[in-house]
Every structure is written in C-alpha cells, then in structure tokens.
C-alpha cells in the first residue's frame, strides 16, 4: 500500500514539475535576459555570467517607461473599478430580476464579447479622433470597459445565482431596504466572485496591446505594452533587447501582487451554512 502510494505521489510530482517548468521557463528566460549586460546578451546562456541592474536603471532613467507605467496602472485600475461596479449591478439584475428585454441584453453583451477587437480598432480610432478622446486615458478606459463588462456580468451573475434568494427575502423581512439587503447581505457573499472578476478584468486591461498601440500616439496615455514596442537601443545599431526584457519583468510584478493580494479573499464555500446543506 505504502509503496503504491509513493509511486502515485512520485508520478504526480514529476507531472507537476514538468508543467511548472514548461510554464515558467519563458519567464525565467526573460528574467535572465533582463539581468545580462549588453555584451553577453546574445551568448545564449540561460544564467547570466555577469549580473547587472543596468537594464533596469536604463528603463527608469527616462520618462518613457515610468510615464507608461503610471498610465498602465491608472487606466487598468479605473477600468477595473468601473467595470466591476457596473458589472455587479448588471449581473444582479440579470440573476435576480425579470424584466423585458433581458434575453436581448444578455445576447448583446455576449455578442460584444465575441466581436474580434481588431475589427473595431479602425472605427474606434476615427470615432475617438472626432470626439477628441484619442490618446487620452478615457479613450482607453471606454473600450476596456466595453470588452470586460460582458465578462464581468457573466462571472458575477453565476456567483449571484449561487446565493440563495431566501437570504434576500429574509433581509427584507428583517427590515432592510433593497439597497441595504444588497450591500449588507448580497455583496459580502458575492465577494469571492467580485474579486475573481476584478482579477480577470485587471489582467485583461493590463495586458492589452492592440487598443493601447492603436488608440494612443504619445506618452500621455500610452500603456507599458505599447511603450515597450517603442523602446529604442542606445544607438541606431543596438537592439533594445535588455530594456525590453527588464520592462517585461517589471510589468509582471503588479499582476503577481494583484493576484496574490486578492487570492486570499477568494474563499470557497463562503455561502455554506446559509441554508440547509
């Protein structure tokens, strides 16, 4: 029995190591690159011979990257907050209320989510230029919300459906206004869903390249993924590989922090015990 258990555990261990290596190898590669100095950049080693922070110093030297980082953080956070706030309310309505045109609404939002963004870029570019929000934060926040709201509504309405309706009725009879019932009973219970959605939306906004490169033209709203594409080497003949690698590592950090921070709040089984189970 014990031997069989050990083999079983070993097999799982090997599988896990393979999967983790497969997933993390590119990350390690880019991280290694970011610590190499320009002379050894192309030596093909996966472990830098001379460790240097030169690339990091380089990207923080100019406003090109720092400004983009501020744009990225600002735009992604604002989009996430608005999308989650609107999504929570919309998802609640979808999950709980019966109203005319509900199916049409769900269909429409699904349609938007399925639309290939590339086909919308050119019209958006023209529209934004005409109404004057091209190359602004708003100009990116709006399309980000458009594409992340359907996702938010979908995930959240699934969570809301899980919450027993009796809880809300109980709150109402206990003397809560609909707003109080929503705030004091429903939202705390939907919190895991809200955080999950927030993570997904934030990652979507943070990682977007297409809208960022198409709807910005200057540092005023250019986010990091787009800014990296504009990196130049210190001379015309030098590739900015080191800087790109360093920038790539830097923009990974907020995502990791964001996920780690919210992961603790995604506690499964929060609703257990509400009703007979």
């Amino acid at each position, binding site marked *: 029995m014990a031997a069989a258990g050990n083999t079983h555990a070993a097999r799982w261990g090997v599988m896990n190591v393979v999967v983790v290596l497969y997933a993390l190898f590119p990350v390690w590669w880019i991280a290694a690159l970011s610590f190499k100095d320009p002379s050894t950049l192309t030596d093909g080693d996966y472990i830098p011979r001379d460790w240097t922070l030169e690339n990091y110093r380089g990207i923080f030297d100019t406003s090109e990257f720092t400004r983009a980082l501020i744009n990225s953080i600002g735009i992604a956070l604002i989009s996430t907050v608005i999308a989650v706030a609107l999504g929570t309310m919309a998802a609640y309505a979808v999950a709980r209320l019966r109203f005319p045109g509900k199916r049409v609404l769900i269909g429409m939002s699904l349609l938007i989510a399925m639309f290939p963004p590339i086909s919308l870029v050119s019209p958006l570019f023209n529209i934004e230029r005409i109404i004057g929000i091209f190359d602004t934060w708003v100009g990116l926040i709006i399309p980000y919300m458009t594409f992340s709201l359907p996702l938010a509504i979908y995930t959240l309405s699934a969570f809301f459906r899980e919450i027993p309706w009796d809880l809300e009725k109980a*709150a*109402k009879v206990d003397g809560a206004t609909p707003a109080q019932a929503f705030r004091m009973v429903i939202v705390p219970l939907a919190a895991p869903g809200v955080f999950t959605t927030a993570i997904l939306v934030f990652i979507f906004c943070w990682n977007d390249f297409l809208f960022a490169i198409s709807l910005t033209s200057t540092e005023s709203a250019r986010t990091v993924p787009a800014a990296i594409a504009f990196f130049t080497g210190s001379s015309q003949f030098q590739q900015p590989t080191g800087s790109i690698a360093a920038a790539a590592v830097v923009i990974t950090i907020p995502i990791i922090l964001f996920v780690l921070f919210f992961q603790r709040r995604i506690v499964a089984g929060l609703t257990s015990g509400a009703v007979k189970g």
Partner: protein
Amino acid sequence: MAEIILEGVTKRFPDGALAVKDVDLEIADGEFVILVGPSGCGKSTTLNMIAGLEDITEGTLRIGDRVVNDLAPKERDVAMVFQSYALYPHMNVRQNMGFPLRLAKVDKATINAKVTEAARILDLTEHLDRKPANLSGGQRQRVAMGRAIVRDPKAFLMDEPLSNLDAKLRVQMRTQISRLQRSLGTTTVYVTHDQTEAMTLGDRVVVMRQGLVQQIGTPAELYDLPRNIFVAGFIGSPAMNFLNATLADGALRSSLGDLTLDDRTRQALERQDAPREVIVGLRPEAFQDVALSRDRDRTGPVHTATVEVLESLGSDVYVYFAAEGGPATTTELEELAKDSGLRDTGADTRHIVARLDAATRAREGEPVELQVDMAKAHVFDPATGANLTHPVRAD
C-alpha cells in the same frame, strides 16, 4: 401583536397563472393559524403576500388596523422563518439574531440584551459566536427562530420551518414552537404540507387546494366535519377510506354491503337532491371488531373481511383488507394520492384500513367481522366533492 385580516386576497402571476383566489381569513390577535395543503396549493404564496414578498393582485390585507397592501416588508413589522432558515452565512449567531435590530437602529446595549435573552430561551447561549456553517440543523432552525423573536414583531410568519429536520427533531421542535408561541402570545401564521403538524400546532387550520380555501376550522372540526372530499382525504392519518356506493331505499349499497342510513341523514340527502351514485367516506375508527363489541345491541351493518395486512402499534391495530371494486377515485383524491409521497399517511390506497382495539383477535389471512358505525360515515357527491352529510353532523 395584532390581528391579520385578509379580504378577497387574490394573486395572479404576470404569466396569468392564478396562485391564490379570493381568500377571506380573519386571524385574531395571538392566534396560531396553519395554512396547509399539497404543494402548489398557494399556501406559501399567501404567506409571502402577508410578508410583503409578493404583491397582492386584488383584495385587502390588514395587519393591526392598517391596510398594508402597498407597504414594503420592512414597514409591516412581521418576522419570518424560512424553510431553508436563510441565515446570513457571513455573520455569527449573535449578528444573525441582532440583524433586524441593527437595521432598526436599536442601540448596541439593547441589541445585546435582547439577543442574550432570546439565546437563553432557545438554548443557544454557548453558540452565539459560531457561524451558521458550524451549527447542526436543529441549531440553525433555532437561530432562525431567534432572529424572529428578538424583534417582538406584530406577527410571526413561518414557512415550513420544520420540514428540513429529521423526524424526531421535528416533533421536539414542534412542541417548542407551540410553547414559545403560547408564552409570547404573538399572532402566528404557519405554512406546512404536513397535516399532522397542522393538526397538532394550530388553533385553527386553513386547508387550501389550487389557490382556493377549502375549509377553515379547528383541527377537530376539520377531522369530524370536513366540508368536502378533499379536506376529508387530506386530514387524518391513516387517511379516510372512500368507497363507491349507490343510494337506494335509504341505504348505501357498497362493497361493504348495504349501509343503512339513519332518518336524519336520509332526509338531509333527499333535501340536497343527492345523486344516486355517491362516495361514502369512513375513517379507520368507524370500524369496530364485532367480537369485541360490548354494545351488542348497537345497530350497524356488519361486514366480514379477510385481513391482508395487520399492523400493530401497541395501542391500536390497523387492519388492511381489500374491498370489492376498489376504493373510489375522484380528481381530488387522485391529486392527494399524487401528493402523498410527501405525506406520512401510512395507508395503502388500494385497501380499506380499519383501526381496531389492541385486544382484537384479528390475524393476517383470517376473516374478521367488522361493524360500521354509520354515525361517523360521510357521504360525498362525486361530481362536486361536497360532503352531503356535513349539514347533519354540524348540528
């Protein structure tokens, strides 16, 4: 505390389905009223309308001296206990019970005192800091009760509060609810599909079917004087036996032989133009073992039956036997049979069941002579389901 008055209360859902039709009910201050009926009879909808969780399509609802048709649940000052208990999982027992008071902006010290008191009554003191997830079913049920009583509301509304408990606990909690209601003296409306619960708990019982009130009365009235075949079949366990019979020469010709009717019953049937084909209803205790009958001269038709199954409960013996032609069926009875999966009737619907004294000598497979007490027999019109003997017995 207050009385609750329903006048012609009707609920029609947006899709046109009529859930509750024209309910008239006056619940006195402090009274314990049970709404009972098979699933889908409109009892829960009626309760939800009293709570304010469902809109009232037509009619008037008064709680105390106020018409509350258009008031939100929070303005009606009623407390509700749900079948699922609906405890807030993110709050501990103390917070759950104090929630209504917190919403009412009661000061912290008062909340604490009231919650502590309610916890003492319900024996929850040691669990006050636990979350609902860590409580047993019975404890959760008590927390739900506690959340209702801390508020001292005008009325308690209970929607099948015991149906999620196991049988033994249910009986215990039934007694506890009854005692609690009497000591608090709060008007209570209680919904259940279990006729035993209805009979044991209620001051008065309202039997509903398909959104219509069938009969309102004390448990004894419903048992002895059912207005129609539905109430007769629904109330009582084991259920009433129903047989097809033909009315001829002042007697009911049935598979149990000719059941002679007394003069008053006969006259009453004539007055009401009773049809020739009727259904006769006999409760299990309307039968008596002739061998045990001390009262030899008591008249009543005697039927000899072969015992198929015998169940001894110690105090009583249930004897099951087949009746020629089988039991009578009507739409009402079929509906009850369909619903009886939910009911603990203990009765086999294809057989006649008689409740005999424990001293009976009846044995399985052997014949037994049974006397039918016609004073306890009911005669129903198969077309309308009305109890034709009701006027006679009601006197």
